[in-house]
């Protein structure tokens, strides 16, 4: 794919930025740590989302429990809709290595080895198994200190483009992936679910590897979605980050109401607490960025949604992460070069 020095420096940049931080609880610092390694593979006919998550546990009253807990989220969307869910095995059945990119939750694991992410899924209870190899294509970008409330911060390591090969078996149906576009990020920080924030983020990756453009966008608002705190559109050309549009350069517009026929809610018990099919996902999300002669426009339209539903840490409410599969159209002009592509993607809408 690349000449060796580029591949080597790309791998080094991932090792230096993507290592698991682990909770500072063991060092006597304040609790509230959350951290996850998030992977999405999106290609025609299939979306796969895998998330290895580690957090300081709280008790049912929202107080620190003085221990950590792990969760694996594995979701797949194909022509039969979303399937999969969340597992939370006991901590004794979890292995996580601080300072490295290696974690096992129950029977599933992720490890960075020889310049490749190797993910093995063994979740018979979720009816989902598989073995994947994800090869990075772009250099990462890191954003620190997203505000998520007073003294609450989240950090974001993003690796927008990888190519994925392997096999996933869902509900007995075998999906072979050969060079499928994939996205990876790693978030960590000390914050609580249910704070005064919400977000929308997603990515656009061309189907063909020869097409050099990769796009990631993010919009963070207050909980009600009225006030925008942070907006960003990140653009890569080949391996390197080419352009960053920020805040005033970026306009995010939600339009229309989307009525999904069915919502796959996980964990399943949350269907009893959050029934119905109302979502905060619009019929169309448009992100427009403009500045210094450059411009970019992404238009996302949803087709299927899975909700990851999390109890708020400090109140009786719920936080809902809408993992929304759909199509994105991207067009732009950067440094005088015009481009456009359409691709499959998963956009995340976080809201109450």
């Amino acid at each position, binding site marked *: 794919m690349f000449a060796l020095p580029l591949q080597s420096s790309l791998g080094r940049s991932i090792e230096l930025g993507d290592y698991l931080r682990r909770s500072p609880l063991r060092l006597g610092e304040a609790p509230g740590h959350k951290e996850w390694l998030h992977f999405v593979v999106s290609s025609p006919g299939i979306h796969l989302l895998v998330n290895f998550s580690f957090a300081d546990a709280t008790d049912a009253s929202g107080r620190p429990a003085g221990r950590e807990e792990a969760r694996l989220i594995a979701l797949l969307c194909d022509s039969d809709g979303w399937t999969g869910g969340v597992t939370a095995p006991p901590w004794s059945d979890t292995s996580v290595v601080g300072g490295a990119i290696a974690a096992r939750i129950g029977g599933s694991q992720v490890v960075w080895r020889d310049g490749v992410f190797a993910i093995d899924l063994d979740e018979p209870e979720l009816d989902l198994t598989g073995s994947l190899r994800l090869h990075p294509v772009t250099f990462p970008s890191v954003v620190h200190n997203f505000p998520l409330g007073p003294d609450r911060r989240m950090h974001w390591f993003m690796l927008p483009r990888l190519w994925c090969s392997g096999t996933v078996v869902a509900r007995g149906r075998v999906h072979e992936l050969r060079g499928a576009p994939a996205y990876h990020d790693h978030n960590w920080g000390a914050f609580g679910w249910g704070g005064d924030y919400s977000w929308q983020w997603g990515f656009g990756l061309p189907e063909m590897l020869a097409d050099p453009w990769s796009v990631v966008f993010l919009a963070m608002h207050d909980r009600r979605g009225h006030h925008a705190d942070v907006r960003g559109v990140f653009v890569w050309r080949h391996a390197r980050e080419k352009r960053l549009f920020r805040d005033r350069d970026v306009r995010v517009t939600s339009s229309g109401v989307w009525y999904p026929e069915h919502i796959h809610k996980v*964990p399943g018990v949350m269907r009893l607490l959050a029934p119905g099919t109302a979502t905060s996902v619009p019929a169309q999300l448009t992100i427009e960025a403009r500045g210094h002669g450059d411009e970019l426009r992404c238009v996302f339209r949803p087709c299927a949604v899975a909700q990851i539903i999390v109890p708020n840490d400090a109140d009786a409410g719920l936080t809902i992460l809408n993992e929304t599969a759909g199509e994105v159209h991207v067009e732009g002009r950067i440094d005088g070069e015009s481009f456009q592509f359409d691709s499959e993607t998963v956009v995340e809408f976080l809201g109450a």
Partner: protein
Amino acid sequence: MTFPELLITALAALDREAPHYAREMARALGAVSVGITVDGEAVRLRASSGVIGADRSGDNACVRIVTRSDTVVDLVDGRSRIVDAVETGRLQAWGTPSDLETVDVALQHFLSGAVRGSNVRELWIRYRRAACGTHAKDEE
């Protein structure tokens, strides 16, 4: 583990782990008692002096619910909705509309506390394992 064992132990765990939700559940239930029979085993849920509790009796309840453990598993795992279980006869419920609504509110408080603690989750895993074994045998 039977359903009465699950409910009695889970309520004790809720009271320890999430006393706020246990109190809200008792407040919501008020004077409404609920008799639940699962796989023929009965348990009665009621609030007394603001404290939620359960005992092994299905008699004289304001609301009666009869179902099977595989239906309970399907509901909690999100494979079925309560309304679908009622409509298909997999779950039968008797009571006034007002009392049934009260039970639904109490259930929301119970679940809100249960999903925030670890003990009820572990109890649930044991119950589900036992329930799946029970009905696998039935179908053989």
